[in-house]
């Protein structure tokens, strides 16, 4: 209930030290990159036609992938956290599969399912004339596949931490499980959902292997920033670093702008 800060709080060294080390560990490589950046070439690179397109495509697909993950992942997390059914342990472990699967293999797996000759893809193609690989929708799909576990695991953790008695209170007030879910459970775990969505979005933004394998590398259509970075790496390490920094700056700016608002919402 009360979040009043204690005044003049001393942070114990035993916590500050590892925290500082951890921060350093995360930030130093970035400093290394910044130190190695040819700043003078930055404007020129930014002005290159493909870069902004790739950046926009990255942001769009990552956001769509995150929304897809939210739409499918939150119900899945709820199922895992609140409903007992046989095989729940196994399914919970299976959810982590895309995490462990090397992304390129993930892309191959997606091709095997959604590809023109895939299990579902051939049917989709024959029935609806829909082909997913090598389209922007395919990028979203690949990113969502890789990023989904982050959302599901984060939200499931939040649901398990939330007090189920609020849901009981809602039930006694006449709320069915669906209304309880939307009106009580979800708002209660909003910070967890926000954290999961952030992880999910960031992972989707950085996705490379599954995307290039499943959706290919077409500028303007499926070439996201990480793919552009990959191609730049072929010829010019510096260019790759600059592109990465552009991606980073944009995402850090967006995250710094968003997260506090989300987190302090409820």
């Amino acid at each position: 209930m009360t979040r009043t800060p204690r005044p003049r709080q001393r942070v114990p060294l035993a916590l500050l030290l590892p925290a500082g080390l951890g921060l350093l560990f995360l930030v130093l490589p970035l400093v290394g990159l910044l130190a190695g950046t040819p700043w003078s070439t930055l404007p020129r690179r930014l002005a290159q036609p493909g870069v902004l397109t790739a950046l926009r495509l990255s942001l769009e697909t990552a956001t769509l992938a995150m929304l897809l993950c939210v739409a499918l992942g939150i119900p899945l997390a709820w199922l895992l956290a609140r409903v007992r059914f046989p095989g729940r342990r196994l399914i919970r472990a299976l959810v982590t599969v895309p995490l462990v699967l090397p992304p390129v293999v993930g892309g191959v797996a997606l091709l095997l399912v959604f590809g023109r000759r895939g299990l579902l893809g051939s049917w989709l193609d024959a029935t609806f004339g829909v082909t997913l690989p090598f389209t922007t929708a395919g990028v979203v799909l690949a990113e969502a596949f890789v990023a989904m576990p982050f959302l599901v695991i984060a939200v499931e953790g939040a649901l398990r931490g939330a007090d189920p008695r609020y849901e009981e209170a809602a039930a006694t007030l006449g709320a069915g499980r669906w209304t309880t879910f939307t009106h009580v459970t979800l708002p209660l775990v909003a910070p967890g959902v926000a954290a999961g969505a952030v992880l999910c979005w960031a992972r989707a933004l950085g996705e490379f292997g599954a995307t290039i394998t499943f959706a290919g590398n077409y500028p303007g259509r499926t070439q996201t920033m990480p793919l552009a970075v990959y191609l730049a790496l072929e010829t010019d390490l510096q260019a790759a670093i600059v592109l990465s920094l552009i991606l980073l700056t944009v995402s850090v700016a967006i995250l710094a702008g968003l997260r506090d608002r989300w987190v302090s919402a409820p």
Partner: protein
Amino acid sequence: GGDEPTAQDGGGRVTVFAAASLTESFTTLGRDFEAAHPGTTVVFNFAGSSALATQITQGAPADVFAAASPATMKTVTDAGDAAGAPVTLVRNQLVIAVPKGNPHRIAGLADLARPGVKVALCAEQVPCGAAAKMALEAAAVKLTPATLEQDVKGALAKVKLGEVDAALVYRTDVRAAAAELDAVEFPESTRAVNDYPIVVLKRADNPAGARAFVDYVRSAAGRTVLTAAGFQAPPDQ
């Protein structure tokens, strides 16, 4: 839909799946080809050859496949996705990449086995690794590399960043990084060449455009661009 690379507008669209190491030269060639064939658009999908091969065998809509090794090309021809036999477009030859000024005074393969010299090679599974193995065997040099990289650019990056003192990479790679690296040629390199095959695909939506593109890159004009990037012409020409 409108996103599909199909032959519908003017001279049509040619979709080219090409090995990532061809990115720069093919991008130039594509622009030249479009200028030479007004109304035709070339769309590239650059990625690792093996990923491209998987995509093609899984039904990707592509007209042309340019691979960085005969082995990956073989998976496509074996799957029956090629229209006709592949031809060798260019070949690439190994050199020893060393930091600018060659501080360790590397003169040949034998110097790589000197104690205190850290070397990066490609793994045997990838073409540059297979070539390196052949060259080292030919020179009867045994060495323990610090790492077996998954591709040339990994090995190259490690020289650029000073993590290793030398790496066996392609001449084209060193040429692209001439500002930071020197190439040390060695005689056994003739035994360590890698062919880049190219082929028109069977399920091409635009077979005419595909053939035109393959002809163009194999023409003298195409050859000029490729050799400028450090590739060698194939022996039969």
